[in-house]
């Protein structure tokens, strides 16, 4: 059977792409080092496949049709949109998919009862997916199953559903007849505001109290507290884009709510960045 060997959570701040370059500026050394630590774990644990859980930023999915959870079933994906190449200097890329694992997660002819997934056979991935890949697997040599979680356009799934998604991914991997070694990687933010009065506070958080709590739930292995603490009202009060923090609950639940091996809101010039990881216990 396939094995879930690693779960991790990273930021996907695209502004890093122009600034976090050699020689790495001092204020970004922590972010660069934590991306490198997860990249090293992927190699050390001989990961064959990555389930990549991220949020589209109103590029592929907008209010014309905005599903809660979408699993990619394509053989490959184009990555980076023209506005991301323009604004952030990100490269256009091609990423290999993995249909068999995608089918194991959603069901092939009938959907799993765990989650009413939407599925996609053609989808251009934005920086919510590509940015972490460029740092974790720079050669893009590990196939992925992308899963879109809607944390950008209300109405959002509840935090309990993000945890259910994580448990379902773990169960699907455990039941999949394959020798693959799989990692679940989520991308998101700590408290974050874009386009509101609190954006770009020069490295400060839009809600330091939320960030402390949000790291603590994972460091302590308290999934119930994380779910309770991620009420819509509390998360949105911390920043208008903070709901992308909730993505981490999928990695957390995939690891059974165990305390993270590493849990940190890493400082940077932009805002504290989420870094969490768990080796399989």
């Amino acid at each position: 059977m396939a094995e879930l060997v690693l779960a991790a959570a990273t930021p996907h701040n695209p502004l890093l792409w122009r600034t976090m370059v050699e020689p790495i500026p001092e204020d970004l050394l922590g972010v660069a080092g934590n991306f490198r630590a997860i990249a090293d774990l992927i190699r050390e644990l001989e990961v064959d496949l990555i389930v990549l859980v991220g949020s589209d930023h109103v590029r592929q999915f907008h209010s014309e049709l905005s599903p809660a959870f979408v699993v990619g079933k394509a053989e490959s994906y184009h990555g980076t949109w023209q506005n991301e190449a323009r604004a952030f200097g990100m490269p256009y890329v091609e990423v290999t998919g993995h249909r068999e694992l995608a089918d194991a997660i959603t069901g092939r002819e009938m959907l799993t009862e765990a989650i009413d997934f939407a599925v996609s056979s053609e989808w251009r991935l934005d920086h919510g997916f590509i940015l972490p890949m460029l740092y974790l697997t720079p050669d893009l040599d590990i196939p992925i199953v992308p899963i879109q979680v809607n944390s950008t356009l209300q109405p959002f799934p509840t935090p309990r559903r993000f945890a259910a998604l994580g448990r379902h991914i773990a169960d699907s991997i455990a039941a999949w007849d394959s020798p693959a070694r799989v990692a679940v990687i989520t991308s998101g933010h700590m408290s974050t505001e874009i386009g509101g009065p609190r954006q770009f506070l020069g490295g400060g958080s839009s809600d330091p109290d939320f960030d402390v709590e949000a790291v603590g739930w994972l460091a302590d292995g308290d999934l119930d507290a994380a779910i309770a603490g991620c009420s819509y009202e509390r998360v949105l009060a911390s920043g208008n884009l903070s709901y992308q923090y909730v993505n981490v609950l999928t990695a957390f639940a995939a690891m059974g709510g165990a305390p993270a091996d590493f849990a940190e809101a890493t400082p940077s010039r932009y805002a504290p960045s989420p870094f969490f990881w768990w080796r399989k216990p």
Partner: protein
Amino acid sequence: MSKYMINKLIRGIELSDATVQAYVADPPGFVTGWLAGGATQETRSDDRELTAEERAAFDTRDYAALYALGAHPYLLWHWVEAVYLHEATWPEMVERYRTAVTPIGWPDFVV
């Protein structure tokens, strides 16, 4: 008032370099062309309509007005970057934008 239509046009401008350039060169002309360019009865749905207030905000690149009208803040900020950074630096635009939207607070942007 339709927050969906505001976001649709913001996105329609910001996603591609060609539309950014066309809009910046002639905002009212671009908006007129956009409003006229929707779907016909025979094609996939693509409605396009703006109130007079929304139309005026797009005609003048008025980001404070669009923010107050409930534009999605993430989309709006990246639209501001796309249509203003040829005439101001990024730090200048960050501060100009903050100054403009702070008195407005946090409007309901749920579509």
